[in-house]
């Protein structure tokens, strides 16, 4: 075999005719199977990406004990704000505050904020929910020990110095609550309380924030990559077709000119 530089360029009709031969139809079928398999594998890795994210978010939405999260004198950090938390203690109803002008489903009312005394004597503000006004049933918190869960929020920083009557505040902050040096910063938006009591303020639902979970890059890139591999199968098939067509052309050119073009029909 001579090592001549191949100059044969198969025409599109050559490629088409070759593609319809049994041999290349079989190869096209195999390529299609591979493409489907790779597309499915990519989809599977994409599902894994979503599953890992969901699992990480679920783990972050699992309440953690408040104890070490916002120690006295420390502000809520960006890692702890929006975190699902749990706490065990007893409500101190004498220091309860009403946050005025808070709406729920279109009605104006109040938020009820009650200090919960933890085992170490510190106080954490619990926003127990919404009531239409300060005389509504459910204002009084239950006596005795309760265990609660909710979402931790940072102090509200608006409406500073807004005029209010005693026991009423315009926004939740350490200054407006004024519970002394034992108070922790921020407040818990109550989601559940055990034992539950009725009547009680309407819960104001807040979803835990989970923005900082680790993204599963490995699964994500694998998903993307399977789809690139599927495209690669197409490229290999076309290259194969081209090379074989080129080979046929070279063979027909090196042969002495035949009296008639052999028909493939």
């Amino acid at each position, binding site marked *: 075999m001579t090592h001549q530089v191949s100059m044969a360029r198969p025409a599109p009709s050559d490629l088409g005719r070759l593609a319809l031969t049994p041999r290349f139809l079989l190869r096209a079928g195999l390529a299609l199977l591979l493409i489907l398999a790779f597309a499915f594998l990519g989809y599977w890795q994409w599902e894994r990406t979503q599953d890992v994210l969901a699992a990480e978010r679920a783990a972050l939405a699992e309440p953690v004990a408040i104890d070490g999260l916002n120690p006295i004198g420390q502000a809520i950090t960006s890692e702890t704000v929006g975190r699902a938390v749990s706490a065990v203690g007893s409500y101190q109803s004498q220091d309860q505050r009403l946050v005025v002008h808070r709406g729920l489903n279109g009605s104006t009312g109040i938020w009820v904020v009650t200090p919960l005394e933890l085992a170490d004597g510190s106080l954490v503000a619990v926003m127990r929910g919404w009531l239409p006004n300060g005389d509504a049933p459910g204002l009084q918190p239950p006596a005795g020990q309760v265990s609660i869960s909710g979402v931790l929020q940072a102090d509200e920083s608006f409406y500073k110095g807004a005029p209010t009557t005693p026991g009423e505040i315009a926004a939740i902050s350490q200054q407006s609550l004024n519970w002394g040096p034992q108070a922790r910063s921020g407040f818990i938006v109550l989601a559940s309380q055990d034992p539950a009591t009725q009547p009680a303020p309407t819960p104001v639902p807040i979803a835990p924030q989970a923005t900082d979970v*680790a993204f599963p890059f*490995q699964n994500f*890139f694998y998903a993307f*990559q399977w789809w690139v591999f599927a495209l690669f199968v197409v490229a290999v098939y076309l*290259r194969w077709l081209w*090379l074989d067509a080129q080979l046929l052309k070279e063979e027909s050119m090196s042969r002495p000119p035949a009296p008639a073009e052999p028909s493939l029909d």
Partner: protein
Amino acid sequence: MNGIPGAALRYRIMAWITGVVLATAFTWMVLLIVMWMVDGNALTDFFSSNEQKPTAYGVLWIVHGWAYFLYLIAGVDLAFRLRYSIVRTVLILLAGTVPFMSFVAERYVHKDLARRALPSSVS
């Protein structure tokens, strides 16, 4: 078809890069699994949990994925030029996914080239 020495060099480079990255990632994985199981965890949990795995470890696997893609391109190109059969081509391509096997495949290909008395660009 011409260009066999160039294609062989490209394949050799990708076989080594893919092989080194895969061997590193694989060895790292074995070490992590040993530590994971010494801590009393189940083997299946290792693959479903990402917490104990360093970031660089995950990055290494991603790097292997893309190095392997280049390995595929170089391998298919060379196999076409050498007119390898489908089975032989697929085996060479799959060698890039099995730890340490891409080195073996690379040795095989270059022995084959030497036997054909075609000049391999790297001695």
